[in-house]
């Protein structure tokens, strides 16, 4: 569904991504893990068009996304849940969600937007409870749900998630990741998940890539990566004993 080849991206003379190649199949959950500064956010910014790639190709359903403006990429079915949520704090939960559907308004599908809103509320009942509350007053976990919900309103085929665990208490991380996994099983959404919390990410992903200073150094199934000693040492904390 999404096929990336030799992606090079950076900020002016600062080169961040070096010949990054990866792919995501339909309804797969693929994670990209790596340390701070590895290039994970740059990767998602480049795919979603917020940053212009310097070389390489990003093929999404036979179209090259490189060079397309971000709103076009959302229109084509690829939505980003940005790092740090980036909600509109002075607006209500409902207003934030509806803004996520702006592409649908362009398509004049307003009735469907109402349907989608109800579906997001079914997925995140807590958001329904706080429908008229200002986004800035929500808790961390609720804000993350809202950010995901907003992206879902654009009816994406591929959802890009940038560090959804950031700033969340461990119990909430568990909850959010369960929701993310269900997006795939219940709605068939294809997910590219970028995370520093490798353990949480690998617990729901099918496959993963490990990024180190802008280069892919390892690729494999979640099982492979969890069992890989380098990954364990660098990203999973203490060495695991008795791993099967």
């Amino acid at each position, binding site marked *: 569904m999404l*096929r990336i080849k030799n992606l090079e991206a950076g900020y002016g003379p600062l080169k961040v991504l070096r*010949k990054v*190649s*990866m*792919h995501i199949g339909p309804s797969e959950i693929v994670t990209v893990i790596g340390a701070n500064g590895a290039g994970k956010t740059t990767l998602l910014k480049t795919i979603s068009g917020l940053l212009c790639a310097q070389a390489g190709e990003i093929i999404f359903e036979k179209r090259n996304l490189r060079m397309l403006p971000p709103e076009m990429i959302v229109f084509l079915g690829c939505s980003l849940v940005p790092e740090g949520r980036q909600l509109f704090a002075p607006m209500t939960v409902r207003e934030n969600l509806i803004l996520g559907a702006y592409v649908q308004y362009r398509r004049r599908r307003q009735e469907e937007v109402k349907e989608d809103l109800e579906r997001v509320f079914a997925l995140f009942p807590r958001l329904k409870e706080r429908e008229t509350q200002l986004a800035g007053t929500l808790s961390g976990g609720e804000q993350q749900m809202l950010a995901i919900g907003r992206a879902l309103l654009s009816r994406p085929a591929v959802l890009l998630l940038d560090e959804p665990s950031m700033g969340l208490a461990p119990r909430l991380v568990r909850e959010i990741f369960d929701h993310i996994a269900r997006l795939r099983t219940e709605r068939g959404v294809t997910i590219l998940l970028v995370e520093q919390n490798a353990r949480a990410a690998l617990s729901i992903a099918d496959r993963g*890539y490990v990024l180190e200073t802008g*280069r892919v150094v390892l690729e*494999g199934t979640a099982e492979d990566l969890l069992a*890989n*000693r380098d990954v364990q040492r660098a990203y999973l904390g203490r060495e695991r004993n008795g791993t099967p």
Partner: protein
Amino acid sequence: MYWEPDSECMHREEIEQLQLERLQATLNRVYGRVPFYRKKFDEMGIGPEDVGALADLARLPFTTKDDLRDNYPYGFFAVPMREVVRIHASSGTTGTPTVVGYTRNDIRTWSNLVARIITMGGATKDDVIQIAFGYGLFTGAFGLHYGAERIGASVIPASSGNTARQIKIMQDFKTTALVSTPSYALLIGETIREMGIPLSSLSLKWGLFGAEPWSDAMRQEIEDRLGIVATDNYGLSEVIGPGVSGECLERKGLHINEDHFIVEVVDPETLTPVPPGEVGELVLTTLSKEAFPMIRYRTRDLTRLLSGECPCGRTGQRMSRVFGRSDDMLIIRGVNVFPSQVETVLFEIEGTEPHYQIVLDRKGAMDEATVLVEVSESIFFDQMRRQKEMIERIQKRLAQDLGVTFGVKLVGKKGLERFEGKARRVVDNRKM
């Protein structure tokens, strides 16, 4: 039946994308962790960043057996020793062995690749698989063992040797699949005949053979003697062990596990890729090995890639059965000859037994080649005239097909050495 249908039947496009991703990741890793490769790449002024397409692989340096020997034992390991859970070594019929290592993930991958091959060769979890390879540093036994266990079959780690015992195990334990070298399978077949054991007392159905080149004629012989369907499988310890490629039941070439190995075929002299479908030396690059990744390893095995689709539905490119090694190719009076070519001729002549030896001498400046071939009792004790006729027939065929004049000597049954492991069919007495 497929072991990993998603991987074995992937579209060509998907295979190539996966190969590119894994190649780039492997190059990034080896550049950082294997001093030999970093040095070589730096010398050539090339790095992982220069590889943006599979074709760019041709710009990278080869790795040879000598390189491995020079870095004996652990010079090519890409992970710390505490992550290596298994060490194997190649038999190395000449010189120092090469040492290879596996992480836990490598072992799991290896088991799955061999599981694919066993499955495509017909065996399933309901089979009783007798592994008649020698257990030890050689990768054949453990490789097939883990693959067989992976599919859930009942595995008998018989190891090699003591043929009478092997046969008793086959009868009593009701072995349905035999794993060994083709030469050993032949020996077992012979012994069964000698002992007067009827095939009906055996439960054999499948044979999975490898570790040395063997001809179609030999396959037929083995299948007849043991009452099985025999498939070839290929691998080498430097790259992983068994599991690189294997024949499906169509037996129209060996499917290569391309999601784990990139295959190239090069001219052994010029080292440039041969035109599609031509014979050349197989060069392999690993895509998922953690402990012992290999970039463009020269296998010295001669093969060619087969085009077209296989009826079995697997999309991995196929290679022909290995013709021989580029270093056991003989040059006799300027003519290139493979022992397997001699084998083919001999098998087609009635009265010969499937045991032969090529002896090379030099008289003065000229090479002299003699073929010793075992013949059936009736011929051996027959009139001189009939023996002479046979000798002439063999000589004529060899000259016709191979372009070399051989001396031919007929030998009685068991007159030649038998091999449990790899057969040594050439005695080269020529001193350079």
